[in-house]
């Protein structure tokens, strides 16, 4: 899957699983500050990423996940690595 594919699928996950407004999702949007995703929501997001992209994201790497773009980076790196 290319980067654009990951971005599009991730946007769908954010809208469907976390109930985020599609228009609010940009690559620079911060989960906690801009999208009002709380710490439990970040855990939900991680689990949804693992299921939908068939990757494993360890808790220590999950700390670096601040923006939507960070999530795309992590998924891209895991899928190609």
């Amino acid at each position, binding site marked *: 899957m290319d980067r654009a594919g990951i971005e599009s699928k991730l946007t769908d996950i954010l809208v469907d*699983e976390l109930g985020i407004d599609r228009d609010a999702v940009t690559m620079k949007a911060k989960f906690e500050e801009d999208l009002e995703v*709380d710490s*439990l929501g970040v855990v*939900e997001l991680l*689990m949804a990423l693992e299921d939908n992209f068939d990757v494993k994201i360890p808790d220590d790497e999950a700390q670096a996940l601040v923006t939507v773009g960070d999530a795309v980076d992590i998924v891209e790196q895991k899928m190609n690595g």
Partner: protein
Amino acid sequence: MNGRVALVTGASRGIGREIALELASSGHIVAVNYSRSADAAAAVVNEIEAAGGSALAVQADVGDAEAVDSMVSRITEELGPIAVLVNNAGITRDGLLLRMSAEDFDAVIETNLRSVFLCSKAVLRAMMRAKWGRIITIGSVSGVYGNAGQANYSAAKAGLMGFSRSLAKEIGSRGITVNVVAPGFIVSDMTAELGDDAMESVAKQISLGRLGRPEEVASAVGYLASDDAGYITGHTLVIDGGMAL
């Protein structure tokens, strides 16, 4: 008829059976979990269906992680996402601590406490997605006050109260409530083993002067599972006829 899917563990007999019937009567679609009593579980399903409800018998050892996951997957596929979980399955291996084997300790912890962790975890994501859920675990006065000869059982039952309070805090923001119902002496196969004389002396310690009935526990579970109980979480509701007064 609310149409919510409810999973009741250990629902083929006793209090679990009454809880399954109670939830079915308030319109839940009930997954009747059992470990070995397939005939008894089928009878519960038949009784629910005869009364116009829907139910499904599902076998699983609830202390086994893989068995729990496959049970929850099957229920989700056949009935829909689980909205109400009642952790009821339990066993006793009573004995004074001096004579209690490590196997008897572990078996009780696994079936009575580890099962609560496994089943709660398995249903949580569906509840979070729905932003609504009820997790109700059957404790015991033994876990609240202690009971000689039940160090293992008391430990498990006290443990699930701590578990429930912590989980209530973790997921309260998602509209999911987590509570414990702690029965005292209730007429069941478990108490029948104690014998008439023992039961008479037990009844003397109870303010209401009698043992409880399984349906008196089930109705409380029915309430906690309802929308009406939406502001109750992290609570342990003791149903013991005033034993502790």
